[in-house]
């Protein structure tokens, strides 16, 4: 130890004078065809990030926003400035939803898709507690926002109502805030309508329909339980999680066609590549059910579940699951072939909680 200490001390003394001169100049990385991992980061540490995994190998590029924009992370950390909630792309632009633990510090970073070069930053009060983002038109994105949240025990955590920020990607600005529902979260675009639900803990039972042409509220449907719109299937039917139920509705007639009641509320859910099945975790297993199913009896795919997210790559049909060991160390993405055989396990960043396949 002594030698090591002496050496370190000498190095340390030198380092005293030079460590601030250290700079890193990562080369611009193309983040083209591949899978983005949304790393939420740890609560209060505001250290979320996005990683990039290529489809052809196990290489991972971490913290790609900072890699692409090194000048924006002058002081280390993830440089993203908050917990990353979601990511999507609209017409060549990427939107990163960044939720900071402090009010007034949330952001949506608009980047150039593929290169991740920063193009615009949307801030408070336009953006406050951003949750999820979808494409809502040729050059338009909807960002669901809880708005300022207060004390959970006092019932002021979810502001009533939350709102949807309409992002105009031509100008890189929020053009409108559409009042939505309390705890507004998941949205699915069906034709020119957006079906909007809310967080299961919000207690709001309204399924909101928004006209995506006019960005106005069209209809409010009382759903009986808190609706969380998941995806549109191959038959054009909308699936909604409502407590323990997976509900299939006809988006035109708004009528419920099928209701599958599981033992408990499904964990993370992903739609299959052909949109004919849903994959989900329940009771320590990963299973799937067909969109034609009439009973809630899934078929087991893997004898394990994932503490992070689940995703099916639409291009390769491979299954992606993520593990969050703790919020104080990097998590892993584990990949499987469609038949359930293991491909590999790659280390990503803090709390991998979502995938974006491009």
């Amino acid at each position, binding site marked *: *130890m002594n030698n090591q200490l002496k050496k*370190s001390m000498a190095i340390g003394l030198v380092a005293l004078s030079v460590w601030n001169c250290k700079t890193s100049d990562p080369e611009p990385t193309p983040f083209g065809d591949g899978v983005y991992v949304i790393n939420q980061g740890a609560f209060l540490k505001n250290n979320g990030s996005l990683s990039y995994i290529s489809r052809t190998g196990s290489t991972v590029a971490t913290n790609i926003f900072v890699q692409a924009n090194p000048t924006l992370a*002058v*002081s280390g950390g993830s440089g993203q400035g*908050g917990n990353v909630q979601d990511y999507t792309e609209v017409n060549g632009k990427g939107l990163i939803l960044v939720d900071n633990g402090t009010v007034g510090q949330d952001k949506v970073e608009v980047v150039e898709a593929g290169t991740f070069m920063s193009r615009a930053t949307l801030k408070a009060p336009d953006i406050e507690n951003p949750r999820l983002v979808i494409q809502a038109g040729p050059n338009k994105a909807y960002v669901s926002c809880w708005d300022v949240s207060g004390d959970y025990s006092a019932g002021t955590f979810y502001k009533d109502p939350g709102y949807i920020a309409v992002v105009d990607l031509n100008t890189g600005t929020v053009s409108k805030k559409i009042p939505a529902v309390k705890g507004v979260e998941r949205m699915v675009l069906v034709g020119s309508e957006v079906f909007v639900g809310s967080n299961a803990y919000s207690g709001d039972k309204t399924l909101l329909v928004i006209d995506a042409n006019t960005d106005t509220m069209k209809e409010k449907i009382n759903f009986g339980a808190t609706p969380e719109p998941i995806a549109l299937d191959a038959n054009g039917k909308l699936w909604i999680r409502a407590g323990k139920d997976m509900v299939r509705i006809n988006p035109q007639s708004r009528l419920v066609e099928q209701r599958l009641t599981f033992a408990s509320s499904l964990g993370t859910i992903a739609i299959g590549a052909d949109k004919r099945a849903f994959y989900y975790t329940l009771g320590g297993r990963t299973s799937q059910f067909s969109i034609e199913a009439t009973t809630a009896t899934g078929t087991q795919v893997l004898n394990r579940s994932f503490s992070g997210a689940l995703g099916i790559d639409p291009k390769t049909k491979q299954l992606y699951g993520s*593990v969050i060991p703790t919020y*104080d160390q990097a998590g892993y993405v584990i990949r499987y072939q469609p038949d359930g055989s293991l491909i590999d396990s790659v280390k990503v*960043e803090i709390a991998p909680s979502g995938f974006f396949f491009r």
Partner: protein
Amino acid sequence: MHKLFYPFIVKKQTLRWWVLGLFSGFISSQDNCVAQADSSGQAKKSSIVSLSAVTVRAIAPERFLVGQKIQHIDSVTLRQFQFGSLIDLLSLNTPIAIKNYGPGQLATVAFRGTSANHTAVLWNGININQPNLGLTDFSTLPVAGFDQLALQYGSSASVVGSGAVGGSILLGSNADWQRKFSVILGQQFASFHNNQTQAGVRYATALGQNWKLSGKTFAYRNKFNNRYPYTERQRYFLEPSTTAQRGFVQDLYFLHKSGKQFSVNAWLSDNDLIITPLDTIARERTRTQSARLLATYEVNRLTVRLGWIRDLLDYGKGNFDTPSHTETERLISRAEREFTLASTPSRQLNLRVGGEWSHYRTRTDGYGGQLIQEDREDIYALMRFQTARWLLSANIRQAFVTRFNPPITPSFGAEYQFIQRNHFTLTAKGSISRNYRVPTLNERYWIELGDPNLKPESGVNMEIGLAAKATVSDNLALTTELTAYHNRVDNWTYWNPAKAYHVENLQLVVARGLEFNTGLNYTQNRWQTGIRLGYAYTRSSQERVYDNYAQDVVGKQLPYVPIHTGTANAWLQRGKTRLSVQAQANSRRYSTADNSQFLKGNTLVNLLLEHSTKLGPVPVRVQGNLNNLFNALVVGVKQNALPGRNGSINLIVNFSSVN
């Protein structure tokens, strides 16, 4: 060195009886010993009557920690930080790792690669760490609240008790018998609409024939509005916050001419932090109110203390009327007796035996709202032996905590003066000690997540060092010290995320490192100049694989503990004008346990210009502070920017009548 320690583990039981025996022996043979000590005390006193009775006070507890590093912060530095927070003082003068959530927000310190709750904070000898959290929020302790500051590096469980694993911070009050009456008034005007006001008096007077009184009454109020002229620095947001601090200090010392002394110390403090105050829904308020009262009676080297500490913690979000409330009280009593077993010009042997009993009462929403009580008892024996060249100590302590069984904690230390010349001394030091930490109340009583059956953390600390003092000429003096340490803490508690954050005795942390500091002073006529440099290498890592994913954490540097830290303080003084440069630098701080993320290293430089003058008969000191001279960007734990360059003007009036 582990082998050296081994017999003591084997003979733990025997040792325990030895301590108990020693303690009971102390009680039964007390009369005898008092007589002994009386005579030696008397002998000493007679030679130093003029210096009052200060020297018959018992030996400061840290002096039993022979072989360990102690750093006394000088009064000049304390005066420079009269309007500063303890955090600023420590970061610019010590290698302690600081974890800072933002201006006015939670700030904790860690010695030598341990964590915040391995730092004992003592105020006049009693531990004032908030018992629920087991740590002190240093943002709530302004330097103005105490008169003396010292840092005890390394574990000192045998002397201090639970929690002194990485080191201890010793805050103290002192009596001033010299001045009859003095008034101190201070006002700070700082950037961001921040201001501070201090006012106090010190007094000393005779009370009849036999008694003297010395006292201090002091109050402060600090208002940090933090109105930054910018909301971001290089894309890093600043977090809006305000802090209002108030404090009241009352010290009274009654000294009898026989040497016995009765004293009362009180420190009331109130810290009110509001984050994002302008947003009425999301604003968060943390209010910390502490009352610390201590009565001490010292006679013939018998010291009896009775203390009472109450900590209130209120947290509210949005609506501040119904905060979540934590209330914790401690009643502390301690009796200790010191014996001079041998006292000749060539050798001095002192023994101190003592016992402590504390009663804890806590009530918090997090424990289900019911009152939780526990008792803690400690007995200890401290021995110190001094010859012309040798200084040795052997100490032992056993604590008893309700539903708990802390380990027995011995410590041994030695110092040897290799070279003793008029102009040069070189001392070698070494010590080994066992340490422990009783888990915090939160760790044991928090609903569901806490575990009442946790084991205490326990560790072994070893250190060796060399200290040199050289007087090169009448004008030039040099001091330097080099210390290497190794501290191994097992059963380190961990709120295990893999088990829904239930707390467990999971980890094994090994901290090792080097500390080097040196000071050079030069005086010539009206000129004085000096420099103090400090460097620390700290390597601290978790070493146990307790689950699959712990592989990624093993051997990695503990978060927020920089491997390299350096401090530099240089000053130049002519007459009553002094210019100081204070600098602090640290290498990167990892922000995750697997070291996958980090905050970059940084350097902070402050400038301080002081001038003392007189306005008529009134002495006035003016300080001009320029903080973060180079406008460095430093981010806190939440990845918010700390403020850029800022300044303050301080005015201090210190009017005294000397008797």
